[in-house]
């Protein structure tokens, strides 16, 4: 099984190759993105901070990502609760429709929304991007929250009813705290998805560039690329931190509700 282990390590190298190269070019003094490296500099990071267009794009992206995370998690709490706790006619069909964006190419979501929004005369802006991002984030949030609600011990809620709590206060005082780590994890995952999403933002943002749209537009200019590498390094560091947090909360959520430990974002 030695061979398999070597293969596994080689595969990790393949997976991480682009991410390892990113900071190398971000701190490289040369303007051309190629080897050999020519020396250490932080000037690309300074340029990131000094560029107004980047600041504007970051602001747009943050507004979109925070709104999308909050709205899609709220919708997903409803859906996950309904699908794990209640039986009702047409459940499979309704859940299928809500989960559909997971298997739908994003470009289809983007163009179909574009047709409708332009058709009813809505101006493209940050708001229209949020509408699209909520659509694609919700299924991921539901997947996370389903496992949180599923591992919930129902007898705890029943105990609260028996002790005279109403349905809503039971949800607020018992259920919500128990699934809170799952909610945090869902917020973080949807925030990350929205922050990184390109194609929907490209179609629906109008003149308001988000960060990925800005990055894509800069790839055409070779002299702008080192700055993008620096920006990318910051983004990757941020994503990895957020994910580590999300994973931590997801595990705590399962541990708290008493479910079995299983690894990964599955």
């Amino acid at each position, binding site marked *: 099984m030695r061979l398999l282990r070597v293969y596994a390590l080689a595969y990790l190298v393949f997976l991480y190759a682009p991410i390892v190269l990113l900071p190398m070019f971000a701190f490289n003094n040369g303007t051309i993105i190629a080897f050999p490296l020519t020396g250490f500099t932080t000037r690309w990071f300074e340029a990131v901070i000094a560029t107004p267009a980047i600041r504007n794009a970051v602001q747009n992206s943050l507004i979109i990502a925070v709104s999308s995370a909050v709205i899609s998690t709220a919708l997903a709490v409803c859906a996950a609760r309904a699908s794990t706790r209640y039986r009702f006619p047409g459940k499979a069909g309704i859940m299928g429709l809500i989960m559909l964006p997971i298997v739908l*190419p994003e470009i289809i979501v983007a163009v179909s929304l574009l047709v409708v929004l332009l058709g009813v005369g809505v101006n493209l802006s940050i708001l229209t991007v949020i509408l699209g991002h909520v659509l694609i984030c919700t299924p991921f949030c539901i997947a996370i929250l389903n496992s949180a609600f599923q591992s919930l011990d129902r007898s705890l809620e029943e105990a609260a009813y028996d002790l005279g709590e109403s349905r809503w206060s039971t949800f607020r005082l018992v259920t919500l705290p128990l699934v809170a780590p799952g909610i945090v994890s869902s917020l973080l995952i949807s925030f990350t998805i929205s922050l990184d999403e390109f194609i929907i933002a490209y179609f629906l943002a109008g003149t308001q560039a988000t960060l990925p749209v800005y990055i894509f537009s800069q790839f055409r200019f070779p002299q702008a690329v080192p700055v993008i590498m620096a920006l990318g390094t910051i983004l990757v560091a941020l994503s990895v931190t957020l994910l580590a947090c999300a994973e931590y909360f997801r595990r705590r959520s399962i541990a708290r509700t008493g479910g079995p430990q299983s690894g990964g974002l599955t």
Partner: protein
Amino acid sequence: MGAGVPRRLGRSEAARGFVLIGPPAIYAILLLAAPLGTMLLYSFLTDGYLEIIWTLTLDNYREAWTDPLYRSVVLRSLRVAAMVTLVTVCLAFPIAYYVSFHVRPSRKGLWLFLITIPFWTSYLIRVFLWKVILGYNGVINSGLLGLGVIDEPLTFILYNVNAVVITLAHAYAPFAILPIFVALERIDRSLLEAGRDLGESGPMTFWRVTLPLAMPGVVAAVLIVFIPTIGDYVTPALVGGPEGRMVANLIQLQYLRLDNFPLGSAIALSAMAIVTVVSLVFLFLNRRFLRAAP
């Protein structure tokens, strides 16, 4: 509970379920089902430059299916997606197998986390870095030149279908690994021992017991990789060059450049129909593995 819901109905389980599923369902109907329906309607209309002509016609589909340019792009997308799927799933299987069978249970979570991290980092930047790795002055070429393996830079690895396949195989790796891993984890280990006890060799046990039992995961991996890759826009646009354009680039061209929504809709829906048919055929061919799935 909603104020308009009568008390008795409010108490029934189905009604509570409906009230809860209401907001996400309405959202999906308004912003997913209705737009897809509108797109379907548009695909039967005609683009009249400044406005849409409201007579139903099949012309868009006729053009989408008979124009040699469109047809070659759609066929290339199918070919590229099939290649990406094959490469990704074949590369992923040994990893899923290694993590499931040869990693200590306490370390499995860490391995899966390591495998999923690259997926969550900026997709655009990862694709661009593949361009840096595969380029004329890229990492591979300068490395091989430095080692004296080649005399001049390799040009067949960027701005063509190969580059698209490599980049997408990297991007979709976790999508392939996770379902296969889940299927492998479900295999009852005593079945493998039984195979050995009955005199099968290690490879034969793998071929006749492990692989058939892992097939539901492999089938899921194939579909999860195949369906989104065929609609990928960024990778063909950045590393594909003119030879590597795929159907998403064509859809973008129709919508944003040529402003021809009806034809764009017809192409998009045709591509979706093809993907659906291919996926269903694939599921049908593998039905005997899926029937036994728990």
